[in-house]
């Protein structure tokens, strides 16, 4: 069966209308196939996966504690290895909070040991499941329920891929729900690699971003088109490939569509544009490319 036709996610889940994280999961599973076990630390997906005895995904899921994505996967991998099962892929599917913040230690430990698993962080840029609290993935300029009013977040988003790359893992990549082909290709590629693999998937959240549900793919796409979230992959911590070189789009186009950025002034947006440009040029340098 063509990978894209395979359906391992079910209807009837309780994700919000237009949820980017569910689109991410659907594409991911299409490319991954069913020979896999998924570790799911606390996050929106813990809920979307269904209340016992229901499951919205057709592969085994192990619900794990919030901070243990890396450690639980390590254990599952070890158990499968003990049973001589080298075929089954172990996957951790965690939110940005569970990855950038509380789960970072377990993740760093696991990839430092080059544990054989795929870690996917679906990034909706805040702790959404508990009510939109800021995480270290929340971008500069964003409103969250813990960065309200004039106290909007004035710190930059942590660059998680670079942190993982610094561990020199065999494969690290970014992906985006608006680029399904690229996303599925990367999943298949990751599946074929041994050792620690990390995929950072940009997944919009209509509820937390204060955007209309029908715009969630469009806005995710714009994150790539504006260079806010470039699509690239890094092999063995050194070989960079940029997968998509956008035309000149201004970041303000992306910001002005989202309620969480409504308070930003033109000057703020100019400052953000500079940050984005700086990051992009840094990435180009790493990839040995020119603008």
């Amino acid at each position, binding site marked *: 069966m063509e990978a*894209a036709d395979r*359906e391992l*996610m*079910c*209807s*009837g*889940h*309780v*994700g919000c*209308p*237009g*949820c*980017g994280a*569910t*689109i991410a999961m*659907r594409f991911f599973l299409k490319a991954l196939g069913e020979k896999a076990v998924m570790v799911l630390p606390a996050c929106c997906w813990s809920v979307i996966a*269904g209340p*016992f*005895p*229901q*499951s*919205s995904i*057709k592969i085994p*899921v192990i619900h794990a504690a919030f901070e243990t994505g890396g450690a639980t996967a390590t254990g599952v991998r070890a158990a499968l290895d*003990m*049973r001589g099962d080298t075929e089954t892929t172990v996957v951790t599917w965690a939110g940005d909070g569970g990855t950038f913040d509380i789960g970072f230690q377990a993740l760093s430990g696991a990839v430092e040991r080059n544990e054989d698993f795929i870690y996917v962080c679906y990034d909706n840029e805040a702790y959404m499941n508990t009510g939109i609290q800021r995480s270290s993935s929340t971008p500069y300029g964003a409103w969250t329920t813990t960065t309200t009013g004039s106290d909007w977040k004035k710190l930059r988003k942590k660059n998680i891929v670079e942190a993982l790359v610094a561990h020199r893992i065999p494969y690290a990549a970014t992906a985006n729900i*608006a680029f*399904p082909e690229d996303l599925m290709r990367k999943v298949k590629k990751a599946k074929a690699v041994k050792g620690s693999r990390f995929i950072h998937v940009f997944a919009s959240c*209509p509820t937390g971003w204060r955007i*209309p*549900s*029908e*715009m*969630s*793919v*469009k806005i995710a*796409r714009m994150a790539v*088109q504006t260079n806010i979230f470039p699509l690239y992959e890094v092999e063995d911590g050194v070989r960079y490939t940029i997968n998509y070189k956008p035309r000149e789009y201004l970041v303000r186009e992306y910001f002005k569509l989202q309620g969480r950025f409504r308070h930003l002034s033109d000057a703020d947006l100019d400052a953000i544009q500079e940050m984005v440009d700086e990051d992009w040029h840094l990435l180009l340098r790493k990839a040995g490319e020119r603008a």
Partner: protein
Amino acid sequence: MDSGVAFKRRLYMPRTSMTTEGNRTGSWRFLRPRYEEKTSPCSAACPVGEDIPRVEMLVTQGAFKEAWETILLENPLPGVCGRVCFHPCEGKCNRKDFDTPVAIHTLERFLSDTAFRNETKPVLPRRPPTGKRVAVVGSGPAGLSAAWFLTILGYECDVLEAMEEAGGLLRWGIPEYRLPRSELQREIGRIVDEGVRIHTGERVKKERFEELRTRYDALLLGCGLWKNRPLGISGEDVPGVEDGLTFLRRVRGGERPAVGGVNAIIGGGNTAVDVARSVVRLGGEAVIVYRRRREDMPAFFEEIEGALEEGVEIKELLAPSSIAARNGGLVLTLRRMMIEGKDKDGRGRIVPAGTETLSLEVARVFVATGADTAETWHLPPAGNDKTIRLSRCLLSFEEGVPVAYVGDLAGGDLNVTAAIASGKEAVMALDSYFKGGCGTILEDLSSCRVGDGTSLSMEIYLGGARKARSRHVVTYEEINTDYFSFEPRITQPRLLPDERRLSFDEIEMKLSAGTAMREAGRCFNCGICNGCDNCWLYCPDVAVIRQRRSGERLIDYNYCKGCGLCVVECPRNAMALEEEGGS
């Protein structure tokens, strides 16, 4: 356990036993997406309402025969229109706001060329015979179109043509380099193959026309405008002053009139430009003299450009005031004009610029300032309670059997595609009349309008799939351009100007299938589903179902939460989102 790990007690592992499919999340929905095909601006702008987005979709898939048949159901002459239509479709193409319009006319011609090369026989829907007979007078574009559609609708049809060969203006008025005779003959041959009888050399005079009334159930009169309109100036009748249309007819009849020296062509329409370009090909010099400015010329832009490339000169803002013979040649006296204010039709109003005149010594003068009906009875009767004027034709029920006045006689737009549209409209109106009387005509026709204009669709009239489309004309803003990238429009291969001056060979050359498919791939397919599957792919609720057999998609409202993503991510606005519980 063999692994050596021993557990005191068996671990309790809760295992899920069912999917979430028992949750009918459709109850969350307050907006309802649905499939709704719409109308493309190109189709609405096409006088015959061709289903252009579908044609281009089929070309992209390499389904050339189906694409050609799709055109044939709306237009019996794609090989003609692909060459001589001024393609208003392209002017309205949404792609123009993105990069450049799709080369619709080039693809239309490609399909015709391909079908003829492969000797393809079209398979078209046809109504069973009605037992009714209709006579069509004139085999120009309007007459041929009427004959074709009459046949599709089950009428027996005789076409009576005065000349020795069918085609009317297409045969005798449009030069070979724009429309080769062989191409026209193939198109007419296909119409004949469909069952139309064309009787050439049958000039219908008034008495014969009266006789036809008694022998047929309806008559269509589409004999065009062939009588030169006089200039109304002195010297108009001196030898050396010729009628443009007659000249074109002679050339197309195979004559090669001598045109040495300078030839002045008076007029600014397509006939004037056709005469000028023919003169150039016969070795003469051509100067077009026009009362208004070049930008006011009714001739098609591409024709004017082509003429200039070939060395035709255009003198603007000059009105002829007299012609006189002198030294074996002619002296054309011209009055300088200027623009002052605007005419009722929005064009600049021309008035004499002082009293100054200018004289031009020329060998010949061609008059191409428009034409009238050859005989007065060709003119439709004045509007009264026994006539129905439609957008492009006039029906008269004055004396027994209905008579339809079509093409140029109907007094609308004077171009080939408008004439084809006129024949089609008249046939639909007659069919509607035969089925339900005069009272149903307007309603029947308006139910098969394409978009908001006057174009009519035979597919809709026949109750085909196109009937389900909404009239809404898709705008550029409604296209999700994220799914398209800039692609240059094909450049039509053409003969070089130097090559063109030497012969009447067709200027525009053929296209390869690969090039055609690439060009068709530029089409957004505005408003119609091309099966790209975006709606299916992006649905977060796995609620878009693809029917394996029919290839159709449908939405499972048990689960659809109404997020609207499918509607926004449909690149071509083939879906709609409406309030739940609405209409």
